[in-house]
């Protein structure tokens, strides 16, 4: 279950953002990932809850995951963007280039992005 590691990586980055903005509390974190990012949203959220349970500044915060578009790179024609269709029936994660119809494509599986963080900032 590498979602625990991913949740830790998110929390570490958010800790730095808290510091940078001198925030007292995190309210909500929104992350996005494509359907092929090897992340199970429920497990990621569960791991986030476990990791932040003892962290005061994360108390009652939520992690929300949005689904972003899949992106392929075509090794034949240099197309970058959404695949033409869902996976090859024989090989999952192999996609067709919509531009040249090549099956020689690479799917980006590391899109998991921290989009926004809602913070509570104390009055000066």
């Amino acid at each position, binding site marked *: 279950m590498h979602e*625990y*590691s*991913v949740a830790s*990586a998110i929390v570490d980055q958010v800790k730095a*953002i808290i510091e940078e903005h001198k925030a007292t509390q995190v309210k909500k974190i929104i992350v996005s990932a494509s359907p092929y990012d090897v992340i199970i949203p429920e497990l990621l959220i569960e791991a986030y809850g476990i990791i932040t349970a003892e962290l005061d500044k994360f108390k009652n915060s939520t992690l929300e995951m949005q689904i972003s578009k899949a992106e392929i790179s075509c090794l034949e024609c240099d197309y970058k963007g959404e695949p033409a269709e869902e996976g090859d029936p024989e*090989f999952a*994660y192999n996609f067709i280039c919509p531009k040249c119809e090549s099956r020689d494509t690479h*799917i980006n599986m590391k899109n998991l992005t921290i*989009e*926004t963080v809602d913070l509570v900032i104390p009055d000066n």
Partner: protein
Amino acid sequence: MSPEKKVVVKKLAYQVNDELADKIREVMKSKNKLFFNMMGSIGSGKTLILERLAAKLSSKYRVFVINGDVATTIDADRIAKQGATTVQINTGGGCHLSAKLIQNELDKINIDDYDIFIAENVGNLICPAAWDIGAQLNITVVSITEGEYVVKKHPIIFKSAEIAIINKCDLDGLGFNSDVLAEDAAKIKSGMKVILTSAKTGQGIDELITALGIEY
């Protein structure tokens, strides 16, 4: 009531790990070192392949092997007997190595004391695929005893690799078939180098050394 602020971040969750992995790769390249990441399933034969590699390479090269396992130093101890220097990382519950875990071990040694670095990742066919550890080449090992669909069922780990090893080929024909796995591994990623090995008999080890770009 304190004001709330929405901060737009737009940063990859893997960013910190991947930046460190890039740094490790740069250091290795600048010092003319080789660093390989061996991934694969539990019981696929990764450790025996590394014993074979260590036995062949240690007379000419100074080999440093980083073993990742949930517990014990069994694998590191086995490989050390073949002439390599080894260190065992026990990940506890962790299912993969990371750039930070590798850097922690590199910080304890002088990189210049070694020529070839190999990490044996934690045995599983999913989690290590997402975590760049700074290697120049990723290797995925499966064995023919894992069934004829093992490549198709785990495409991600093969897409993350440049070399696919199909191991335990000494059992070919005894109810197991290496051909289907080798064909699937070749189809799953353009340019994939597929090597049939038997770590038990030594089959394919020389071909692996050549594929790694090591003069032997």
